[in-house]
Each structure stands twice: as structure tokens, then as C-alpha cells.
């Protein structure tokens, strides 16, 4: 997304990126960043929480309107309503995709060639 933001802005279209990783986004030097302290998979908030989603959307358009220089950052002061140790648990698919399974197999030590 940072690559895209820079390409699109470079063509003359103002962009804003809403991100769970505002520190990283800032290091990648984007024009406008809206930071949210939400887990991956929830850029705009909790499912069914329209007020929360609307707050993030308002922050995004506010950033578009008020940023006066590149590197603008606006953090949304909403705390995730689930304890972080629960919300930020790591997630992996229970079954790897065929391509991933192939890559994982390729990383296994190969048996010595039989003579």
C-alpha cells in the first residue's frame, strides 16, 4: 500500500492511508497517514460498530482536507475494546495453501541421494 500511495499521489491525486502501523508508514514517507491502534484485519474498527467505523472514516477525510505538508499524521484516539493479549493473538491459516505447503516442503532437509 505504501508503494501505491506514492505512485497515486505522484500522479497528482491526494491520498490518505489508514494504517495499523503508522510508525512504519511514517518511515516509508507517505503524504498522509491516519493511524489506528487496531489489530490486523480491522483497519476501520469492530464489526457492527458503525460509530467506530465512521470515526475512522471522518479522520481519513479530515486528513485529506487539512494536511498542509507531506508526512502528515493523524492518530485516531480510539482504544480497541478487547484486551491486547486477546486481540493481537497471532493467526495463521489452519491449513497452508498449496503453494505455501510446497515452499515449506522445500525447506525441509533433503534426504541424501541413494546410491
Amino acid at each position, binding site marked *: 500500500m505504501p508503494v501505491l500511495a506514492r*505512485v497515486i499521489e505522484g500522479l497528482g491525486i*491526494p491520498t490518505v*492511508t489508514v494504517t495499523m502501523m503508522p510508525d512504519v508508514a511514517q518511515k516509508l514517507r507517505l503524504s498522509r497517514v491516519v493511524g489506528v491502534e487496531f489489530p490486523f484485519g480491522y483497519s476501520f474498527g469492530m464489526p457492527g460498530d458503525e460509530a467506530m467505523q465512521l470515526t475512522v472514516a471522518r479522520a481519513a477525510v479530515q486528513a485529506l482536507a487539512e494536511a498542509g505538508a507531506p508526512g502528515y499524521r493523524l492518530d*485516531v484516539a480510539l482504544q480497541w475494546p478487547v484486551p*491486547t493479549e486477546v486481540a493481537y493473538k497471532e493467526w495463521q491459516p489452519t491449513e497452508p495453501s498449496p*503453494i505455501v505447503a510446497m515452499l515449506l516442503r522445500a525447506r525441509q532437509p533433503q534426504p541424501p541421494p541413494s546410491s
Partner: protein
Amino acid sequence: MAVGLFPGARRGRLLAVERGKRVLSGVVEPIAYIQRLTRMYEHLGYPAYQWVRNDDRPPFVPLSKPLAECRLGLIASGGIYAAGQVAFHFKDDTSIRAIPREAPIASLRTAHFAYDQADARADPNCVFPLGTLRGLVAEGVLGELASHAYTFMGGIYSARRVQEEVAPALVQRLIDERVDIALLVPV
């Protein structure tokens, strides 16, 4: 509901957020995203991830007219597609989907290899705020949405492929749609 926005907030600062009548407060702990992503890619069998580095000043274009007159293009990388469209594949899928701006939220689907989609499937606005943005248009905050929102499946390992394959396709759509502003939503 009073919800504050403040520019430049830093991790570790005390947040107090009123949600309904319940006030939540506490110190926000930093999340080790870099380490998490590195572990995720390791788990998927990739070599160490190389982060993009940009040392130059970011491109910056100020808004040329009021938001209420702007046409917004929504771009989201959560693997969203509409019922009837081809789903995204497992990874490094650089194709894009065009979702009509009037698409019923219930017709949206997700396919993505790198995040738990259970909640995004229950309410796609979590990762693809189409309904939320329609609300801002109805309110008069935004002029209108582009005729389509554009989606792809993020987690594309190669920044070069994003630059050479995803970006040109998306940019062409945004130009064709004559969008004034773009909102980018990763997952």
C-alpha cells in the same frame, strides 16, 4: 458519544476514550508489527522480508477543492470481491477487482491468506468501508464516490510486482474515473 482525534499522538500516551457511557483508559502498548510480519513470512516459507525504503520527500498534492465537491476513490487490499466475481488466489495475486459503489454490503466476500477473515466476512466495513463512505456522501461531507471501489489481495511479497503490475492497473482506473482524492485501506 465524544470521541477525540488528536494529531501526532504517540504510543505510550494515556488514552481516555468515551464509548457510550463507559470510559476506557490505559497506556497503549506498542505492537511489534515488524517482528510479527517477519515471523509470518518465515512461517509461509519466504526468505527475510526486505522493507521498502524511501529516502526522498513523499509526493504531496494539496486538495484542490472542498471535500463536499470531491469524488473519492476507495482502494482496499483486504481481498474483497463481490459475489459472482472470481475470488483471489492464495498469494502474490496481483489482479484487481472493481466493486460497484452501490454494491450491497451483504454481497461482498473476502479471500486473503494472511488475516483472520471471520469478522470481515460478518461486516466487510471492517476492512472495506464502502457503506461507511456512502454515509459520508449522504451526509454531504463527501461529494461522491467513484463508480467503483478497487480491491486486491495484499501481502504481495514483491514491491516490484506491486509497482509494475498492481499500480498501473489501479492508477488507470482512478484516472478514468477522474477521482479527486483516494483513500487507501490496508488490512
